[in-house]
């Protein structure tokens, strides 16, 4: 049975990546290379105010002095930062109307299952479409504006809401936070911006769909979400990229600010191109995501389903400053072929009675390597802080690996910590049981894996839970035999 399993695991490796096509389109693309001149040119092109250019240049200065981190359990060919282009955007008339978006781009999103036509969209989901370095369209803006909700591209926010951007940009992830965050701060090109006013419950799901198209281009987007007091928002991001033999860098920053009594729910379905079965090509997904609960009873919840990318380095975190504030992290990370993921979270308890929950499910198949790295920090004044962590790994086949690194730092004796971790294989006995009931191997594997991920999928908005389930099914098709 083992040999047969292995055979079929190997045949998984031939799975086609559905989103691997490229769009042939005229672009404005910078020459490869990075220096102050490139950053200034980018900033000028985007008509940014001087303070933002200064902020970028300062970040660039610190980035130059920093070293690329090596502590993660990942192994990859180093990125040549001078060989990358830092800006690539489709040439089209910049306008408010969707009618002016290049039809090829609309078609690209259609092929990805994302309709930018508001009538055809899933009811109640607004989309910001980011294509390489720029946002090409944002739907339902007018509808949202009626509720005072601002949902637009980052570039627009810089022009239309400079006071908000200036106040919050870098307030959660300082430009000098880490190597990739510093790089992003220097060169970020676009992304999404969300502001939910006081006591407003955002009337629809907000989502951003990131698409990398151009070759040899880094994607550096920046997302900033601010939920004012008593407000509520659920936001989702999706990502895909063409299949290319070269690795491509995606270094994003996401900052969330939840004020008193506000809730931000942030979900990710990450399906960047993962490289081929030999591990050639694929996206380097080096992302910094962090949220802060500034006020009492604020809540930030991260849910991620990570199935793509050649290498993932990502730790969505929550700083619980307000008393009774809540941080949550629900994660499913799948690695197959030669994919590597080092992901987890950091929960920082500052306020009293703060509470965090971490549920991480790692699935490794083929030669995939999956690492959970999570930190829980209870500061001195965080009386009665509570954390519950559960990190489960499942192995499919015998060439893959799972690793767990929990870091716990408790400075207050009243803290209550619970940690559970399990590693299991999809058992031959489980498969035998399912097969004996007439359920075939693919269905059995997806059933067992979906069961394993249940608690995380339950956190996703309905429409996306279905998508996530299907994605896992496609990803793991033929992974056992």
């Amino acid at each position: 049975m083992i040999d047969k399993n292995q055979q079929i695991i190997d045949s998984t490796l031939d799975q086609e990546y559905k989103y691997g096509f490229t769009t042939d389109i005229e672009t404005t693309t910078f020459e490869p290379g990075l220096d102050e001149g490139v950053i200034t040119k980018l900033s000028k092109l985007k008509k940014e105010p001087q303070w933002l250019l200064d902020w970028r240049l300062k970040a660039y200065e610190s980035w130059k002095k920093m070293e690329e981190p090596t502590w993660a359990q990942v192994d990859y060919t180093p990125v040549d930062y001078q060989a990358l282009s830092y800006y690539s955007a489709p040439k089209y008339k910049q306008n408010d109307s969707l009618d002016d978006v290049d039809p090829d781009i609309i078609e690209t999103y259609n092929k990805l299952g994302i309709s930018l036509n508001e009538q055809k969209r899933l009811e109640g989901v607004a989309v910001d479409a980011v294509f390489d370095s720029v946002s090409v369209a944002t739907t339902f803006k007018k509808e949202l504006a009626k509720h005072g909700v601002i949902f637009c591209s980052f570039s627009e926010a810089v022009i239309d809401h400079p006071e908000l951007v200036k106040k919050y940009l870098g307030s959660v992830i300082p430009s000098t936070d880490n190597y990739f965050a510093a790089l992003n701060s220097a060169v970020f090109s676009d992304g999404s911006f969300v502001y939910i006013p006081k006591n407003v419950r955002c009337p629809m799901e907000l989502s951003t769909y990131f698409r990398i198209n151009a070759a040899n281009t880094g994607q550096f987007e920046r997302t900033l979400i601010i939920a004012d007091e008593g407000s509520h928002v659920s936001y989702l991001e999706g990502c895909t990229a063409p299949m290319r033999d070269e690795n491509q860098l995606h270094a994003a920053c996401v900052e969330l600010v939840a004020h008193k009594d506000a809730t931000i729910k942030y979900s990710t379905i990450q399906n960047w191109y993962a490289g081929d079965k030999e591990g050639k090509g694929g996206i380097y997904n080096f992302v910094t995501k962090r949220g802060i609960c500034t006020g009492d009873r604020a809540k930030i919840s991260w849910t991620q389903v990570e199935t793509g990318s050649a290498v993932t380095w990502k730790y969505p975190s929550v700083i619980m400053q307000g008393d009774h504030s809540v941080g949550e992290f629900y994660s499913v990370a799948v690695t197959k072929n030669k994919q590597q993921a080092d992901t987890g979270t950091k929960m920082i308890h500052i306020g009293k009675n703060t509470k965090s929950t971490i549920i991480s499910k790692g699935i490794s198949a083929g030669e995939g390597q999956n690492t959970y790295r999570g930190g829980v920090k209870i500061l001195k004044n965080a009386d009665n802080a509570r954390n519950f962590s559960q990190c489960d790994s499942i192995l499919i086949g015998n060439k893959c690996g799972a690793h767990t690194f929990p870091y716990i730092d408790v400075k207050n004796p009243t803290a209550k910590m619970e940690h559970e971790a399990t590693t299991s294989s999809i058992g031959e006995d489980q498969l035998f049981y399912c097969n004996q009931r007439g359920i075939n191997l693919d269905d059995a594997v997806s059933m067992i894996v979906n069961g394993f991920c249940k608690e995380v999928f339950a956190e996703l908005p309905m429409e996306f839970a279905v998508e996530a389930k299907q994605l896992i099914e496609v990803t793991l098709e033929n992974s056992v035999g």
Partner: protein
Amino acid sequence: MIKIKNLKASIEDKAILKGINLEIPKGEIHVIMGRNGSGKSTLANVIAGNETYEVDGGSIAMNGNDITEMSIENRALQGLFLCFQYPVAIPGVSMAYFLRAALNAKNKHDGEEEMDAVKFLATAKKILSELGLDDSFLKRSINDGFSGGEKKKSEILQLLMLNPQLAVLDETDSGLDVDALRTVAKGVNEFKNDNNSVLIITHYQRLLEYIKPDVVHIMIDGKIVKSGDMTLVHEVEKNGYSWLVK
């Protein structure tokens, strides 16, 4: 229904089944009794196609079709059902989801329509109440944290829902109190009709107070050494197995 000829099987090069001959016609209940370690579960697993065991010779045929080389799920789809001695847990997969997946697979194979949710629930609830189980049982993860009795009842629930042609019950009576034993036996009797067959594997006679077998076989060291009727059960009860060893 099933015809096993000179079946030999081993695990890790250790011969366990040493030439089993067994034929169960349609409409009959057969019992295999034998001490622990005599190879009863091995036989059940080999019939079901468990690839942990190596088949070294002989054949298994169902309704005249040789299934010796057939995949596990195809045997199941042909109407073979194994009540597991130790059913495995699948965390996060609800009983309802699992049962529907199994039923859908069967319906699809038989070229029938999928059972709709309403009918599924009605059928399942009826069986659950007969087994003395709450409806909420359907929502629980399959075999996950089930008591011994719940595990066996879950197997009987599946048996009754899937309604196979041949049911192989591996020690379905072990670890049950009298009430549960009676309930399980009632389930098996309900399942049984003139068109299907049952193979009961056990090393007690407890279950046989409630289910009347047509033929009793005694298995010793991987061979069926004697076959007969209920009187054989009583002889074994009185005198043990030693007198049967040649």
